[in-house]
């Protein structure tokens, strides 16, 4: 195209402008089609390649990497003060054992008819699991499933004394067993929801669970050491609670600390998070009832 300087009111100028405009539109249209075609190709390529390359981070790939390799896993106890570690290690001083004793009595009365020692020992380390309906079963919900289906009784309320006693006893029975979930757990929607909840920036303080527990473990927030965020010690005796509480209660306390608004204890999102946390801590031994600050 030749650029010539012409008076703006001439007919030659008007013709030139018209031609340029028409050429431009044609070019735009042609290139637009081309671009759209190119974009289509690219999008096909992305859709086809993404799961294999792991670009999107979807859970379709079995080899989803964990935040901590097994060799670097540290349970919450290793971030505690030494006197709390000593209290946890000594069953005569660990107040969580009071709950374990009550759970042992209740288990002998209600559960021992069906459950033998070996299955009882494995149970807590292999939970949470995803059932056929896609719902997450934790130790606590599993106890309540037995209550309704086998014993034909009403469920125990969350954080009620008998439920905490039974869950403490069963977790104690699995003490030393490695946390090990079913390998297909990462394909479940519950796991994906749990991972998303863990990595989503939320709350007034504007951070995610992962921002501290994946990236800052060992450093301090105010005066307290940041742990790796593993739940293998729960149900745990917390000094702050002056009693034993479940992981569900601990997670609600986390949300309180993050200033997000605290979810209800029955919120299924907490179960998803428990599943994701257990998957993160696969390879750590169960150490319930732990002592935490």
């Amino acid at each position, binding site marked *: 195209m030749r650029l010539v300087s012409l008076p703006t009111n001439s007919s030659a100028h008007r013709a030139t402008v018209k031609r340029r405009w028409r050429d431009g539109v044609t070019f735009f249209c042609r290139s637009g089609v081309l671009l759209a075609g190119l974009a289509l190709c690219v999008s096909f390529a992305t859709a086809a390649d993404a799961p294999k390359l792991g670009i999107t981070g979807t859970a379709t790939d079995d080899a989803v990497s964990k935040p901590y390799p097994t060799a670097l896993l540290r349970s919450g106890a290793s971030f505690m003060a030494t006197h709390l570690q000593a209290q946890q290690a000594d069953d005569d001083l660990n107040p969580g054992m*009071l709950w374990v004793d009550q759970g042992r009595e209740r288990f002998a009365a209600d559960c021992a008819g069906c459950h033998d020692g070996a299955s009882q020992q494995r149970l807590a380390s292999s939970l949470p699991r995803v059932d056929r309906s896609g719902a997450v079963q934790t130790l606590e919900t599993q106890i309540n499933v037995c209550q309704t289906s086998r014993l034909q009784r009403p*469920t125990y*309320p969350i954080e009620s004394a008998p439920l905490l006693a039974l869950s403490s006893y069963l977790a104690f029975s699995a003490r030393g067993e490695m946390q090990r979930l079913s390998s297909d757990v990462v394909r479940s929607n519950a796991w994906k929801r749990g991972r998303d909840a863990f990595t989503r920036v939320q709350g007034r303080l504007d951070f995610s669970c992962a921002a501290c527990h994946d990236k800052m473990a060992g450093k301090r927030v105010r005066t307290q050491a940041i742990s790796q965020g593993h739940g293998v010690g729960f149900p745990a005796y917390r000094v702050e609670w*002056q009693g034993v509480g479940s992981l569900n209660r601990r997670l609600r306390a986390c949300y309180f600390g993050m200033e997000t608004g605290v979810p209800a204890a029955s919120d299924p999102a907490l179960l998803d998070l428990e599943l994701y946390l257990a998957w993160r801590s696969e390879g750590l031994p169960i150490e319930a009832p732990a002592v935490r600050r």
Partner: protein
Amino acid sequence: MADAVIAAIPPGRHARLIVPRLLQRGEDFTARLLIQHPMETGFRRDDTGKVLPANVIENVVLLFNDELVFRGRVLNALSANPSLSVQLTAQKSGTLSAHWRDQMGNVGSISTEVRVAGA
């Protein structure tokens, strides 16, 4: 199905009393007592703002074969779920029992066998 209604357990109902499995005659040992009790100081409030009434364990006694071996007047210097260690000397086998009472009159007790070799 609706949740079960769980009756509140009175404080101080559950405890652990631990002694070594087998002792020699004349051996010193530690009896450890752990009591499940909130030890309310009277300074705390519940979620609705109501003051939680003070209720702490006042008296703890240890009996060996119904004979007094330890008497402690413990008040709010102890934390929730208090742990007590008492040094004793083993002379003969028998039953060691602990008894306690809190400010609201709840009483609790626990006992365990002390086994002394050859006695």
